């Protein structure tokens, strides 16, 4: 499980730069990033190198911030990997609420999952040998 930060932002010019500026001035590096948009507003989700510091800094800047544990899977950067995993979860009746992925020099391809049943998903992924247990740096 890794930690993910979620930030509520209005869908307005300048909001994203307000969030990223907080991270930039503290020297926090983004590892993965996505925005779920919903009309007037969006939720930014991100994985960063210094989660606690980022959380504190965003909070101090007045943002509504949440930290959640999400599942991360480390796979080879090659065709069919996401398919294998999503099929295994689907077959076991685990719902994937959202997913995003990134690659980096340090890690292979990392896929982040938010699922309906963490425990069950963990078991399945562990059995497949893909569950990421390291730290995001």
């Amino acid at each position, binding site marked *: 499980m890794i930690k993910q930060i979620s930030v509520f932002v209005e869908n307005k010019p300048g909001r994203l730069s307000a969030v990223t500026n907080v991270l930039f001035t503290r020297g926090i590096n983004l590892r993965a990033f996505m925005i779920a948009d*919903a009309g007037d507003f969006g*939720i930014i989700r991100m994985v960063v190198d210094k989660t606690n510091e980022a959380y504190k800094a965003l909070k101090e800047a007045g943002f509504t911030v*949440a930290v959640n544990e999400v599942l991360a899977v480390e796979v080879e950067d090659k065709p069919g990997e996401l398919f294998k995993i999503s099929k295994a979860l689907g077959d076991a009746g685990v719902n994937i609420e959202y997913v995003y992925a990134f690659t980096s020099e340090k890690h292979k391809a990392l896929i982040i999952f938010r699922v309906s049943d963490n425990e069950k998903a963990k078991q399945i992924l562990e059995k497949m040998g893909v569950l990421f247990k390291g730290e995001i740096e």
Partner: protein
Amino acid sequence: MFWNPTIERMPKKDLEKIQEKKLRALVNNAYNYSPFYRKKFDELGIKPENIRSLEDVEKLPFTRKVDLRENYPFGMFAVPLSQIVRFHASSGTTGKPTLVGYTESDIKVWAESLCRGLVSCGVTHEDVIQIAYGYGLFTGGLGFHYAAEMIGATALPISTGNTARQIELMRDLGVTAIACTPSYMLYMAEFAEKMGASLKDTKLRIGIFGAEPWSEETRKRIEEKTGITAYDVYGTSELSGPLFTECTERSGLHIWADHFLIEVIDPKTGERLGEGEKGELVVTTLSKEAMPLIRWRTGDITVMETEKCSCGRTHPRIMRILGRSDDMLIIRGVNVFPSQVEHVLMQIPELGEHYMIILDRVENLDEMTIQVELNEKVQIDKPAEIINLKRRAEEKLKSVLGVHANVEIVNPGTIQRFEGKAKRIIDKRKI
């Protein structure tokens, strides 16, 4: 034309004699039968016998909205419940509704007041009146309904909404008069235009518009778009409902002095203002039995005129309502206090305490948007959580205010902060 020519043209002196007599009876009644007034008079050391002439009215205390709230439901009543034949209610300022009770006679006086008004702007028993005010706890629909039937006109109790049907029935039934909010009339006219029709091609000739502030410019626009003559109507639920209208002279609304005693005061000092001076309208009900009101602070700003109207009516007139002395908003004809909005928002822990009410008029209809900050302490990870929160807030507001509000959830800290009195309303409407 007159509904009650003797009364409507009665010399001022005779009217004042009636007022004086009724005032004494009112004060007696209120003191003896209304627990609220008994207490209030005793506190101020006023005895009914101290109030002899019309000048003595100034000795009497004001009655305010807060009194109705504190004495909810029946503390303002001066008759036993068995004599009440109807209730109306409007949403109160902070949750509790404002309740009004009527005896059989109260309903009659109300209907006759509006009846006189309708006849004074040319409505007859030949007219078909489309009543596009809400029926139910709101007084607009039933108020016009009873007056229309009293005249012997044909009432079309269509209530609000479903504009296509409003226009269809207006055309098919040969409607000649309509009662609704002025903004809804404009909306309807433009709706007809979009359907490729024009209200000018209907038999509609008179409109009686109120329940929200409007202007001479709006009157002109309505008349240009529909070809009808537009009249102003005034009333508040506490006083009964819609009661007073302009006559065909259109130089003010006639206030029936045999039933209502009016003053215009400085809302800050409470002092009485002279003729032609702008101030808050204060009304004493002279005929109401169930819930008599002494010096009721309407909160509406107007100017009083006592000179006899060129139509022949001798009763005093008030000019078009110019605004409010308090922070009450009128949205699609519904009275809304910012305190009600605040009350609802504060009950939702996921929302912060800073908010802004933005009013606009979109295609002639009022729209209320409430921007409110998200509480920075909540943990949100999915847009659906915000959407649900927004929906919950909108549903709660609708049930308390009686009118829809769009809720926009914004980032904490982004709504302007104020030192001292906060400005929480942006009204972009042009009335």
